[in-house]
């Protein structure tokens, strides 16, 4: 009996060894890939299957990391010397990752890549790092625009605002008591006061005189114009009361829930929320470029790229994967999961969807936050805390702008 058991055990060990040998031919390369969206079934898994068929010998090990802890896990994995081969990344992490010498420059790979001319030139410009190297491979993009309730605008005979003065006028008119109980039920504008709301703030403050850095590299946040622009934004909540009382604590979920329920009549976001809003509101929701500030337009270019890590022992296979995802046909599939816009010229479609139109209409003035190591902390914790204090009247507009300027001066 014992002998039979021993023979069986030997067979199992031999079987698994051979099976491993059979499934991993000599020179097999495993590419670890980190991503953060919830639904890999729609696009990622089919893309991996397709890639592995087209590239025998390369296996993609995709690992989902929760968005809330994505950045910290990525940086700690780099510090620990064990990052993935490829990871989805955002532009404002780039300065820290470059400072850590974590990224592989991709210039020579990209120069030899056939698909490079099909990626929008502006994306190459925006993602190129200040040291002249290209570390990021484009993956997806969005541009923030203004969502508005068509039915409410029509009911009050309002035009879609094109300047910030028109915007304030419309927001005031839309803020009203609709059931006659003496309390306001609808607010003109849903402001995101919690983490992530810097894009709302930037739309009005960075378009009206505030600059993170001026032409000489000095802070442009503490000039009288910049402080006045910030004050104008604070007053939307404190003086004009055109956003809900919950504004300082409102995050993404609250902003979208308020639009869906009719609590707010306008907000700012991107294509990623259009499906949900259209499902709930149908033709009652539409989109337009954000209003013009005193100096021009500014809206946020929301980006996502792939980066290859310098310690990867399979850089060639990793580049094949990132370039595969940035190729028009595959990139279009990817956007089914991301809900965002393809980075390829050949995927661009004219007209049609009103949300896509608002996106493309905003492309010329979309901007990004400064390529500075302080940007990540500004976004994650400094801006939300300062903005909330300013909204609650605990600090002045000047205090807030000075604190941001001091942070970037460190």
């Amino acid at each position: 009996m014992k002998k039979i058991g021993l023979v069986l055990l030997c067979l199992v060990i031999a079987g698994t060894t051979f099976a491993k040998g059979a499934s991993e031919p000599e020179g097999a390369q495993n590419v670890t890939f980190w991503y953060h969206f919830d639904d890999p079934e729609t696009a990622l898994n089919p893309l991996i299957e397709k890639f592995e068929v087209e590239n025998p010998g390369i296996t993609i090990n995709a690992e989902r990391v929760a968005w809330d802890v994505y950045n910290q896990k990525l940086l700690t994995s780099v510090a620990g010397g064990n990052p993935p081969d490829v990871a989805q990344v955002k532009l404002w992490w780039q300065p820290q990752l470059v400072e850590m010498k974590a990224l592989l420059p991709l210039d020579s790979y990209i120069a030899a890549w056939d698909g490079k001319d099909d990626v929008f030139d502006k994306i190459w410009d925006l993602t190129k790092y200040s040291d002249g190297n290209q570390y990021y491979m484009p993956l997806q993009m969005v541009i923030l625009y203004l969502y508005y309730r068509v039915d409410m605008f029509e009911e009050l005979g309002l035009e879609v605002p094109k300047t910030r003065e028109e915007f304030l006028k419309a927001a005031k008119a839309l803020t009203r008591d609709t059931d006659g109980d003496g309390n306001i039920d609808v607010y003109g504008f849903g402001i995101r006061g919690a983490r992530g709301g810097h894009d709302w703030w930037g739309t009005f403050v960075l378009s009206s005189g505030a600059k993170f850095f001026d032409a000489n590299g000095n802070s442009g946040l503490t000039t009288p114009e910049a402080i006045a622009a910030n004050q104008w934004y604070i007053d939307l909540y404190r003086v004009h009361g055109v956003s809900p009382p919950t504004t300082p604590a409102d995050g993404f979920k609250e902003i979208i829930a308020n639009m869906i329920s009719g609590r707010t009549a306008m907000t700012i976001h991107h294509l990623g929320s259009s499906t949900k809003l259209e499902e709930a509101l149908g033709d009652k929701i539409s989109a337009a470029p954000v209003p013009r500030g005193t100096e021009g337009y500014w809206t946020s270019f929301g980006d996502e790229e792939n980066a290859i890590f310098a310690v990867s022992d399979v850089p060639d296979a990793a580049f094949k994967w990132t370039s595969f995802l940035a190729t028009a046909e595959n990139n279009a599939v990817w956007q089914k999961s991301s809900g965002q816009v393809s980075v390829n010229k050949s995927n661009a479609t004219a007209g049609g969807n009103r949300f896509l139109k608002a996106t493309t209409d905003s492309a010329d003035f979309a901007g990004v936050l400064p390529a500075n190591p302080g940007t990540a902390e500004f976004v994650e914790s400094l801006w939300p805390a300062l903005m909330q204090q300013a909204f609650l009247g605990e600090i002045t507009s000047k205090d807030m702008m000075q604190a941001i300027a001091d942070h970037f001066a460190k």
Partner: protein
Amino acid sequence: MKKRSGSFPYILITPALAITILIIFIPMFRTFTYSLTNYILWKPAERGFIGLQNYRQAFSDPILLLSLKNTVIWIVVIIAGQFLLGLSTAMLLNRDFIGRGIARSLILIPWVTPSVITALMWRWMYDGNYGVINEILVRLGILDVYFPFLASSSAALWAIMLALLWQGFPFFAVMILAGLQAIPNELYEAAEVDGAGNLVKFFRITLPMLKPVILTTILLRTIWVANSLDIIFIMTGGGPGYSTYTLPLYSYIRAYKGFDFGYSSVIAILLTIFLIVFIAGYIKSILKEGEK
């Protein structure tokens, strides 16, 4: 004649001691060494010894002082609230009534609910646009309009403390209930014979007999509550502004949002010292009581 046990006891405690050294003392020592460096995760080239500079910065940091103040309020209010609520619940559950078994089980629900769910649930209950708490308060006529509890710097900390009070009081209730059941009935019978009323029985028999349980539970909960940050992080993220920052949350945010592990370590060390002083004082006062 006592028999000497030789090295046997030391051999027995060695595994536990080794694990404690490995997962408690070595990280603690590392935290201390980090606190003396400018260890910013994304600036590996600049990392170096800076002596007490981080500590000097801490003592003039207004956010740290606010976090310390909030931590004291957080511990005192939550522990006192959970104790009083737990004690009254335990007294109630110690009486005979129909459905007592079910009530004893149901009371544990807040305690077994994961913190993440507790936090999300209370966050939506407090919501200033659709929250059920606002709806009830308006219907009762206590509020005229919905109040943004979590967007108000004066109300947010108290709102979160109420959520934690709800979550933690069953632990007190269960521990105290176990203590109540261990009190011999003869003591109450004897007191009744002597003509003692309910209040006298409570203060002269119940509370003194429960003392060891209460003191241990308070000690444990103080440590847990002082270190808890998950509910705050999910409900407000420390906001609005810095109004719901406590020391562990501030340490976490400095480490994982600012990646400043040097300064974050200083905050963690100050929290440890604060807790050691707090608990040492508490234990000392217990021992003094015991000697009386």
